């Protein structure tokens, strides 16, 4: 019995401390170093912040370069697919143009009428515009890790991006900034488990919290009243109750899935987001 225990200890010691021919550090030293790094990172010491920021910038730039072959493959397949669908799209777009031209005439009439009515009522639209921050950024990497759904963008604190700012894709909210470095930032997507925003449902006074589910585009509505039943094709807007996001930003829409269940999906598709707009929350079209 003592012999087997000795063998066990020898095997463990050998695994931890033995150095190979090309090995400079023992496993024990590196495990210890990892634990120290974790503790230092967690303690958020002032020394660690610039170190982490520089490391993030360096790695993100390297990732942007190393992911180029993968991106090229995706780009090529998209171009090929687009080529085959352009003809049909062109036909339907031409029909749409004719329809939209007719609508445009109606719109301009309504616009003028609206302007005149506002003048009479002394209302104005020009609020907050000067204070708004509006930064256009390119997505350098979209992460779908099992732990965090996020995007990396090519603008950071150099371009006055701050933690907590909101990110939009095609006029729809996709997430918030959770990490800023000098040259890059990380956007936490709405679909992430950690994302929670106050919302209001279209054609109702119902307030709720929209949370990420971790799935591709699906979201969950928390804190709904017991009797409330969500209908399909309802748009979900930000309620602005957090005091940061402007009210009325379209975030998600309800759909009927194949099983005839009402599910909620983001309006913007984070997978398709190549260019995003970062604002301080007061987003105007």
């Amino acid at each position, binding site marked *: 019995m003592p012999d087997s225990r000795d063998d066990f200890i020898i095997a463990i010691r050998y*695994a931890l401390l033995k150095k190979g021919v090309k090995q400079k*550090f023992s496993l024990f030293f590196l495990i210890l170093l990892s634990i*120290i790094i974790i503790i230092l990172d967690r303690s958020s010491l002032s020394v660690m912040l610039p170190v982490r920021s520089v490391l993030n910038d360096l790695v993100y730039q390297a990732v942007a370069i190393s*992911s180029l072959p993968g991106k090229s493959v995706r780009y090529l397949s998209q171009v090929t697919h687009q080529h085959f669908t352009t003809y049909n799209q062109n036909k339907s777009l031409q029909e749409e143009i004719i329809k939209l031209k007719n609508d445009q005439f109606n719109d301009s009439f309504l616009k003028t009428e609206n302007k005149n009515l506002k003048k009479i009522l002394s209302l104005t639209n020009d609020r907050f515009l000067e204070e708004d921050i509006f930064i256009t950024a390119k997505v350098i990497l979209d*992460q779908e890790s099992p732990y965090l759904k996020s995007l990396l963008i090519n603008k950071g604190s150099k371009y006055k991006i701050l933690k907590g700012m909101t990110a939009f894709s095609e006029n729809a909210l996709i997430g918030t900034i959770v990490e800023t470095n000098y040259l890059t930032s990380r956007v936490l997507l709405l679909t992430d488990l950690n994302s929670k925003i106050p919302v209001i449902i279209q054609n109702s006074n119902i307030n709720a919290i929209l949370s990420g589910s971790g799935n591709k585009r699906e979201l969950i509505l928390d804190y709904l009243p017991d009797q409330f039943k969500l209908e399909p094709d309802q748009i979900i807007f930000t309620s602005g109750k957090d005091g940061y996001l402007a009210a009325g930003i379209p975030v998600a829409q309800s759909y009927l899935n194949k099983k005839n269940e009402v599910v909620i999906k983001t309006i913007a598709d984070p997978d398709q987001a190549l260019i995003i707009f970062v604002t301080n929350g007061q987003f105007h079209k």
Partner: protein
Amino acid sequence: MKIFYKIKEILFSYFPLILLYFLSFNSFELLKEFHNLIIFSFDLQMILIYFYVLKYPDELTPGHIFIAGIINDTVIGIPLGTSSLSYLVLSFFTSYIRNVTIRTKMLVEWATFIPALFLANFVYFIIINNFSNLSFYYFELLRNSFFTFLFFPIFYYLFNFLLKSNSKIKD
């Protein structure tokens, strides 16, 4: 022609390092290319580390495993050192298995991959839960671990085949 063989030899001899660093930079980016197969996502880094530490420890040293882990943490956005510690624990367990095993068989190595994977993921789980405010996708981690274990034999034979090709080139 000699230059071509030289390049091929260098690529083959540094294959585990190149693959490890490439995966650390691009692991999840690659999975995105195959959306329909995302359900079968698995951790190739774990398989790579387990295989090389078990069979050819001099080809993949702990220093490189540590750096690859740090890169992985930065890319994913989790506390620094999490992946490094998880990979190093996997390396430690694998070294222990190598020390106590006399005759090796694929089935035995496949079976011992279960506790190795469990231990590495357990360390990951503990750190994420205690050293970060992130929520955890438990089911995805479980699914990921299951497919990592399931696909091990395929990569076992693939890596063995590559190593044999490498030794033929050297000869």
